[in-house]
């Protein structure tokens, strides 16, 4: 672009990317609430929201308006700073994770090659691990700040669940990183070009299994949604939250879910590469394959919610530590052995 220095072009591009990604995610969040309620309803042999607007499509708008006008309560003995800060921390870490993942194939425009990724870090996957570690704090602060024993217990349980499954999540990445030889997510996606037999879901099947289960537990989705189960511990760590702060916490959870789904697509399902060699992988078709895969994974999340009963807390913790972590470590051992031998 003429007339602008390199720095200005970078800043402009970053601003546009941030607005685009954040806007799409917020739209996806409200769309997901509607789709989830509808699909759950169909699975449970009922109709779900179908009154507001045609086919109930204006339901998220109605929910938003309701939440906006609800009264914001704060318990008298609550810790002001932490109570107000917890949703902020939750949503900040959720969006920081959003920033380092590619959302589509690179494309040509204005004479340069762009990647739909806000920050292309060389240690992208490691940064994601760091951000998921920070995500625990939003929950811990929310649970502690409300000065309510149910909130505190729910918050601590949820935090313990999150960082227990974070370990297996991180370990499942290591096999993928060993194969690709880099921490950059775009490199890992490019390693899966070619046929679908190159996808890490097949080559690293145990890691894919561990990742799916750990990701479900990370974002507190069924069957791991004990911390926020409506019949347990009142409502867990977000008991005392109402109106827009509650909406922020829900938004953080849904954005985490979308992030995890996009990450699964990039790391294990080939990203924007179609499984069939010969079909185009760049530009609009690449984006179509990418969105289809992400949509499939989100559908599976909703499907799980409608089908499985939830784990009890001790079953959940014992499964995370005693089954998933050894499985992930064995996968790393096997992958490292194969890579080392192949290098001879």
């Amino acid at each position: 672009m003429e007339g602008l220095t390199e720095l200005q072009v970078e800043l402009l591009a970053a601003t546009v990317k941030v607005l685009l990604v954040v806007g799409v995610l917020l739209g996806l969040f409200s769309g997901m609430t509607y789709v989830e309620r509808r699909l759950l309803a169909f699975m449970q042999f009922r109709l779900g929201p179908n009154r507001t607007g045609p086919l109930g499509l204006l339901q998220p708008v109605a929910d938003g308006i309701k939440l906006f006008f609800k009264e914001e309560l704060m318990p008298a003995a609550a810790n002001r700073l932490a109570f107000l800060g917890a949703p902020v921390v939750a949503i900040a870490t959720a969006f920081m994770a959003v920033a380092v993942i590619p959302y589509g194939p690179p494309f040509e425009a204005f004479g340069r090659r762009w990647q739909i990724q806000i920050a292309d870090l060389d240690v992208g996957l490691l940064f994601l691990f760091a951000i998921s570690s920070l995500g625990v704090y939003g929950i811990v602060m929310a649970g502690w700040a409300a000065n309510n024993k149910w909130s505190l217990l729910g918050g601590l349980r949820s935090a313990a669940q999150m960082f227990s499954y974070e370990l297996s999540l991180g370990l499942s990445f290591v096999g993928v990183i060993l194969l690709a030889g880099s921490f950059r997510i775009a490199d890992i996606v490019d390693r899966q070009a070619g046929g679908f037999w190159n996808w890490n879901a097949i080559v690293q099947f145990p890691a894919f299994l561990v990742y799916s289960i750990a990701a479900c537990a990370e974002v507190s989705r069924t069957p791991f949604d004990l911390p926020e189960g409506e019949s347990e511990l009142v409502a867990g760590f977000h008991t005392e939250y109402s109106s827009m702060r509650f909406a922020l916490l829900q938004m953080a959870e849904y954005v985490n879910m979308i992030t995890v789904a996009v990450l699964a697509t990039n790391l294990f399902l080939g990203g924007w590469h179609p499984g069939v060699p010969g079909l185009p992988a760049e530009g609009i078709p690449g984006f179509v394959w990418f969105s289809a895969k992400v949509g499939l994974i989100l559908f599976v999340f909703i499907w799980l919610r409608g089908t499985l009963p939830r784990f009890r807390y001790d079953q959940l913790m014992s499964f995370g530590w005693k089954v998933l972590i050894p499985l992930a470590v064995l996968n790393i051992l096997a992958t490292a052995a194969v890579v080392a031998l192949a290098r001879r």
Partner: protein
Amino acid sequence: MDAVLFYVFAVLAVVNAVLVVAQRNPVYSAFCLIAVLCCLSAIYGLLGSPFIATLQIVVYAGAIMVLFLFVLMLLNVKREERSPGDGVRLKAAGFLLCAVLVAQAGAVLLRARPGGTGAAAYDASTRRMAEILFSPYFLYAFEATSVLILSAIVGAVVLAKKEL
């Protein structure tokens, strides 16, 4: 640009460190310490070590501080109250001792100059770190840390159990 960012994070780190020491409520101290750790991580990034910067967040801010917060919240630790032993003389003595410590350390450290191959050919990538970490020089230490962590786990479980 880098210098400005360094000063911003340095000031934030010092302010939060003072708050860690000055707060009465230990949970607030813990949150301020998390802020210090994040500022230090940013400074490591500015000093050209992305691996150590992310490791700082993963290990320190993401695991050790969560452990601190868990213990603080489960033990329901209250604000620290003033005791009659906390006189002005005690505080003055503390300040003086720390000032002496910092002055002595400063007299030695601040004389340091960049040396060796210098900052020009600095490659702090993960690959380079891994090459050094798994070289014969550091490999034994690396394997020994696994034994250290195992003993720490066993020790922590045994110490914190109610009945053995």
